């Protein structure tokens, strides 16, 4: 056997291969995620919504708060007119409005299109806020231990012992209604999930050899926490975060529906539905189209989240 296998000459290895190797962990992960059928569907849906949000001013024929009766449009328009598309056999003498007209003489299609901007933004910002604060609380609690840990975690228990929307409503009564306030409320309510996840990760990682080694080398607590432990605890946070975005979009929309979030005439889907809910019997298009848009967005995030979870966490493969 001896001498049969030539020793690998390091110098002959193609340098581009080495460079490629460095990023392949990320690329493998991405490929693993995109192999999941639910992630593919989620990416397609969210990509479509993202395009609509970015090019809203191109896609939408009118402004999101543009009264169709007044110049520069000033067309003969009926209040609460049902959807009318000439290609689908609608009378050509009527003005064309794909999703109909609402009670304020706004074009519903344009409002639904602009609403994509708000909802995507809301999802990322709300969950981002919850992750940042939750991670900080969880990291400090898990790393410090003792009374700090106890104090923070009991506080999280208290927040978790409210049904989420009820606590969010209570918070909004204090800080006032509005889209930002609603996001803040939903963000606060979501903090404990991330804090608990982070704390559990920190507890399991902080006793590992590489952490003990860097402590022996004299690294500061902050360095250990943020440079050694945090990067190794990110996976469950990312999985939970993606799964949480759909829920956050839903809950902020629910607050807006109740009149506690985005205020009319902002083109936010939940607020559009809430404002028009009494028209459901004579102008259902005011509810159905923003409703479909909202469900589609949440579906996209949920599918992507399921895919990421299945790819990153094979133990939870369900």
């Amino acid at each position: 056997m001896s001498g049969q296998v030539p020793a690998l000459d390091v110098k002959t290895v193609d340098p581009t291969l080495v460079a490629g190797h460095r990023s392949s962990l990320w690329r493998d992960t991405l490929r693993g995620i995109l192999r999941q059928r639910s992630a593919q569907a989620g990416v397609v849906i969210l990509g479509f919504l993202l395009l609509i949000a970015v090019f809203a001013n191109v896609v939408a024929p009118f402004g999101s708060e543009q009264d169709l009766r007044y110049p520069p449009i000033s067309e003969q328009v009926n209040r609460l007119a049902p959807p009318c598309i000439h290609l689908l056999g609608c009378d050509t003498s009527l003005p064309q409005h794909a999703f109909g007209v609402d009670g304020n003489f706004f074009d519903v299609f344009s409002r639904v299109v602009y609403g994509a901007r708000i909802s995507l933004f809301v999802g990322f910002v709300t969950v981002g806020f919850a992750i940042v604060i939750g991670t900080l609380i969880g990291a400090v609690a898990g790393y410090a231990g003792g009374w700090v840990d106890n104090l923070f975690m009991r506080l999280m228990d208290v927040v978790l012992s409210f049904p989420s929307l009820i606590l969010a409503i209570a918070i909004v009564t204090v800080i006032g209604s509005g889209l930002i306030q609603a996001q803040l409320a939903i963000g606060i309510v979501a903090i404990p999930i991330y804090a608990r996840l982070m704390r559990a990760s920190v507890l399991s990682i902080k006793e590992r050899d590489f952490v003990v080694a860097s402590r022996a080398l004299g690294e500061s607590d902050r360095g250990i926490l943020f440079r050694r432990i945090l990067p190794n605890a990110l996976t469950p946070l990312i999985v939970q975060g993606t799964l949480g975005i759909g829920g956050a979009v839903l809950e902020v929309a629910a607050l807006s529906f109740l009149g506690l979030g985005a205020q009319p005439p902002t083109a936010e889907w939940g607020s559009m539905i809430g404002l028009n809910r009494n028209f459901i019997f004579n102008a259902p298009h005011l509810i159905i189209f923003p409703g479909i848009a909202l469900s589609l967005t949440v579906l996209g995030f949920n599918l992507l989240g399921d895919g990421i979870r299945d790819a990153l966490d094979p133990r939870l493969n369900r």
Partner: protein
Amino acid sequence: MLRFILRRLLLSIPVLLGVILLVFILARVIPSDPCRAALQERATDEICDAFNARYGLDEPLPVQFVAYIGQVATFDLGDSIRYNRPVSEIIFERLPLTMELTLLALLFATVFGVTLGILSAARRNSPADVATMMLANIGVSTPVFVLGLILAWIFGVLLRDTPIALPPSGRLSSGLDYMTLPEAWGMTDLQGPLRAILDWISNMYVFGSLISGQWGVFLDALKHMVLPMVALGTIPLAIIARMTRSSLLDVLGLDYIRTARAKGLGNRAVVLRHALRNALLPVVTIIGLQLGLLLSGAVLTETIFNLAGMGRTITEAIQGRDYLVVQGLTIVIAAVYLFINLVVDVSYGFLDPRIRLR
């Protein structure tokens, strides 16, 4: 077992105190001071000083907090400005409807969710399985208020004159006479806690009319509850179906199932007799977790279907700046939620003896 229940009970006391503290703090940081919030335009400086002295608002905060706990413990939650009645009375009147709605939705979600989950797992990757799981994904993503309004439109407008039309709002059709339990059982002079319990149950129309045998009222009340129940129960249904399926699939891959199949048992016996029992524990956990979602969703469902329960009361109270009602309801809902979680925890102890020993 008793020790396990007692320990869980004791552990929930600090959390309940925390809940009250959090609501107390939230109530104190409301930008407008409580006097002006309560009396609004009637509030002058002298009146407010008297008001603050009367409600102890001039005391230091810790003293106020202790007094507040005392009030909550004696169920004195203050008076509603809007209704000019004690908050506790309003809650007593309106909580039963929310409980009934929540329980019906949970029943609906559990029965259909578990059934669909079993069917999907038993015929894994069949068209029926794929369709069920796609529907479950859509179900999880559809907001309660969108589904509720669309259901109201379909069954209240599109199908109005068909036999499957359903009333899109309210609890009873007009003209129907519902006797409360004390009336139905001829106990109108009854007083005390028993009367309170009977009144409480009477306020759950479906259950009350069922146990007092008022069949016409029962059918009508049930019909009114179908749409809210479906709207509220669909998200939990989808979650339960997914969980049942995956949990059952895990168990179906185990060795003892292979043994059972090798013995020559049919698919039905293997799934229902051998696998299901072991697959259900995670499902029970998930069912317990749905209650928070249901209580949150009840706020939206009640608003849509015009049901005067806790949820609609809380949104109306916010719009009317009726802070004491919001406060009281928040505490009561959190307490109910804590209690239900306690019951769920204890029931695991029954289902899985290992949990008791931890």
